[in-house]
């Protein structure tokens, strides 16, 4: 299949070079050439021999293999943890065996000999466990986990078009000794013979599904966004209001329904359950407790909660930091726990749920909790808070997210907790998420991240400033109000507004963005109270245009890094509107 396309393309190329006329050529009988991004054959490469083409060179098959292998390995990891809890769980052993068996089969098929042979070795060990000749001891599980890591590494190498390397002899030797074959005196076994082909199919009733290249999926999501914009442009066209033709209106209503449905479905296609991420955390907890000598259990709830796969990927790093913090600094040693009357096995909770169009991801522990006094002391020492300030618990705990605070904290080991918490907050902010923290001394800590379901669409508040319109993410808006003159004050050129007892700095958007003809008097315009972290400010706008779903468009490189602007959107009338970056606007480095 692939080779034919290459060949045809080659000949077409030659014809074009012969003609050497225009960039676009009409060619009557040419079949449409497969043009998937990433697997496009190099046009300058010599055409490959069609008859003896190996499957190993089919990039599509290889990439499918890589996807499957990673899924298998994730499943193996999960099953091993089950097995560790219950070594007699034969179903888990079978599942692990099947995963390595399938990987071996396909690897052999694709002539990835080292991977195939490696999996065969692992399979031999698993076979002994399966038949009851050996028990699933922690050593066996550790070794299989190492094997999983190696297969993943090999997959990455193959992906980068490197040959799949040999496994470390030391690892192989250990696997072989478990397989009961002693020292590897003989060379590796021959590659699987033809009887091993085609790859075995796992019989467990997996849902009917097709695999789609994520680039295609992202393109589809983008196009669905386009459809929404185009639909809205038609619907809001003033010329339409003058047409009172029932059939047209009926057709439009139908189009509206279909558009919404298409968009909803397409967005849903990119949703994956968060368990893909949570499963990895189980292994993390296992390794961390092993290293530290502490005892802890991970309780996972809401793993089936779905969210955009792009967010899932970005969430991995902050989650690792949060779990690590809970274990390193939250959970006490078994002796310490026993002394304070707690269960010696610490409980770490990982949860996910949907709430009002947002997703909540929580990490909790029943450890020692945050030490409010020490954090405050530290904050005062760092100049973040003034001595004797009346601060709420939340305001105090907020300091642990402060960059620099955490490292200083670690050196002196004042309260524990805080390693990389600034990284957590930065990452979450980049995802337009917010962080909430609660802690009780001696009882534990609860970190809650609120995230949008998707990165492609936001609820936007459209505001007018002069002749321009800007989008404010609704998630950042706390309230919209028109102040009375007595509430507006100026102090040495800096303006602020008193709102319910708090003094909020005023940001004149027109001045910040040099927009002419905007409202000057705050009492004649509108104040949009926005929040970033725990900091609130009022943005002065002329008017509120409305609230709508906004499809986010990234900005070109040359206009990407403007302070206070995070992206753009196309409005119903086809005009471009810029999306405000509230964190950037409120950031200390940007002063207006």
């Amino acid at each position, binding site marked *: 299949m692939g080779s034919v396309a290459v060949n045809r393309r080659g000949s077409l190329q030659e014809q074009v070079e012969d003609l*050497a006329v225009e960039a*676009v050529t009409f060619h009557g009988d040419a079949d449409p050439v497969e043009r998937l991004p990433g697997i496009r054959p190099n046009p*300058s490469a010599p055409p490959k021999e069609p008859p003896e083409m190996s499957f190993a060179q089919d990039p599509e098959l290889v990439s499918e293999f890589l996807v499957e292998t990673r899924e298998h390995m994730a499943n193996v990891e999960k099953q091993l943890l089950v097995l560790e809890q219950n070594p007699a769980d034969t179903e888990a052993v079978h599942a692990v065996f099947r995963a390595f068996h399938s990987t071996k089969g396909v690897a052999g098929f694709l002539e990835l000999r080292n991977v195939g042979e490696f999996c065969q070795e692992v399979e031999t060990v698993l076979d002994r466990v399966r038949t009851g000749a050996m028990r699933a001891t922690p050593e066996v599980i550790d070794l299989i986990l190492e094997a999983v890591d190696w297969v993943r590494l090999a997959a990455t190498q193959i992906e980068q078009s490197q040959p799949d390397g040999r496994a470390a002899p030391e690892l192989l030797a250990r696997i072989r000794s478990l397989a009961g074959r002693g020292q590897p005196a003989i060379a590796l076994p021959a590659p699987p013979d033809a009887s091993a082909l085609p790859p075995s199919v796992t019989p467990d009733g997996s849902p009917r599904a097709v695999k789609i290249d994520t680039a295609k999926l992202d393109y589809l999501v983008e196009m669905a966004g386009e459809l929404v914009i185009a639909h809205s442009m038609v619907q809001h066209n003033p010329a339409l209001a003058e047409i009172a033709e029932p059939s047209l209106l009926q057709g439009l209503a139908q189009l509206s329904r279909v558009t919404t449905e298409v968009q909803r479905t397409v967005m849903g296609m990119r949703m994956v359950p968060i368990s893909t991420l949570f499963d990895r955390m189980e292994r993390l907890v296992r390794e961390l407790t092993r290293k530290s000598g502490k005892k802890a259990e991970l309780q996972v709830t809401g793993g089936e909660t779905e969210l955009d796969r792009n967010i899932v990927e970005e969430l991995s790093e902050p989650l690792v930091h949060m779990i690590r913090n809970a274990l390193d600094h939250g959970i006490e040693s078994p002796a310490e726990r026993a002394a304070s009357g707690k269960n010696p096995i610490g409980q770490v909770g990982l949860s996910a749920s949907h709430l009002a169009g947002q997703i909540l991801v929580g990490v909790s522990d029943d450890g020692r909790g945050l030490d409010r006094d020490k954090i405050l002391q530290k904050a005062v020492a760092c100049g973040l808070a003034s001595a004797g300030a009346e601060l709420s618990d939340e305001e105090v705990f907020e300091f642990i997210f402060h960059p620099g605070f955490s490292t200083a904290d670690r050196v002196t080991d004042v309260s524990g907790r805080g390693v990389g918490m600034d990284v957590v907050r930065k990452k979450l902010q980049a995802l337009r998420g917010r962080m909430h923290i609660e802690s009780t001394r001696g009882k534990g800590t609860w970190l809650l991240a609120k995230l949008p379901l998707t990165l492609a669409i936001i609820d936007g508040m459209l505001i007018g400033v002069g002749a321009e319109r800007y989008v404010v993410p609704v998630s950042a808006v706390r309230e919209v109000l028109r102040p009375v003159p007595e509430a507006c004050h100026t102090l040495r050129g800096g303006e602020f507004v008193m709102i319910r007892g708090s003094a909020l700095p005023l940001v004149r958007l027109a001045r910040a963005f040099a927009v002419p003809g905007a409202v000057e008097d705050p009492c004649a315009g509108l104040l949009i109270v926005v929040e970033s972290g725990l900091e609130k400010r009022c943005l002065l706008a002329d008017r509120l245009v409305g609230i709508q779903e906004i499809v986010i*468009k990234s900005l070109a490189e*040359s206009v990407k*890094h403007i302070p206070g602007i995070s992206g*753009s959107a196309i409005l119903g009338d086809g005009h471009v509107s810029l999306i405000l970056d509230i964190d950037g606007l409120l950031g200390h480095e940007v002063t207006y």
Partner: protein
Amino acid sequence: MTVAVEIAPIDKTVPNSPRTGKYLTFRLDHEEFGIEVKKVREIVGLQHITPVPHAPRYLRGVINLRGKVIPVIDLRRKFDMADVTYGERTCIIVVWAQTAAGPVLGGLIVDSVSEVLHLDESDVEDTPDLGPRGPLNCFIGLSKAKEHVKILLDVDQVLATDPMPGRSD
């Protein structure tokens, strides 16, 4: 069946005369300019431009090109010419440029579009040294063909503009 073919093999036939080829010419003030046709994606009429705060003066803003948001450069401002009120014939030439960040689309606002010309290497002369003031890297050369002098622009350089203020990287 239409099959779009990469431009690369055609270029190979004329490896020693990179300036030979078709040029789209346009007018700015009293000067005639040219850009390579293969860099042009389309020509669109003037439309609503959303200004971008803190951008260089010549960067008029961004437009919606059928769902893509692209930056638009006012070439008069780029070349320090006086502003004019945009008129009937003002248009935006949408071009592809190769930049450090990969291929990008951008719009160039010009007074009016003239014609498409074929130029041979022998028609093109190097641009004179205008001293330190001239943004010389924007030009490929000068064409003497057809009585009028035409200034040939290097689109990649026109769009690979100065970094934005406040850029983080």
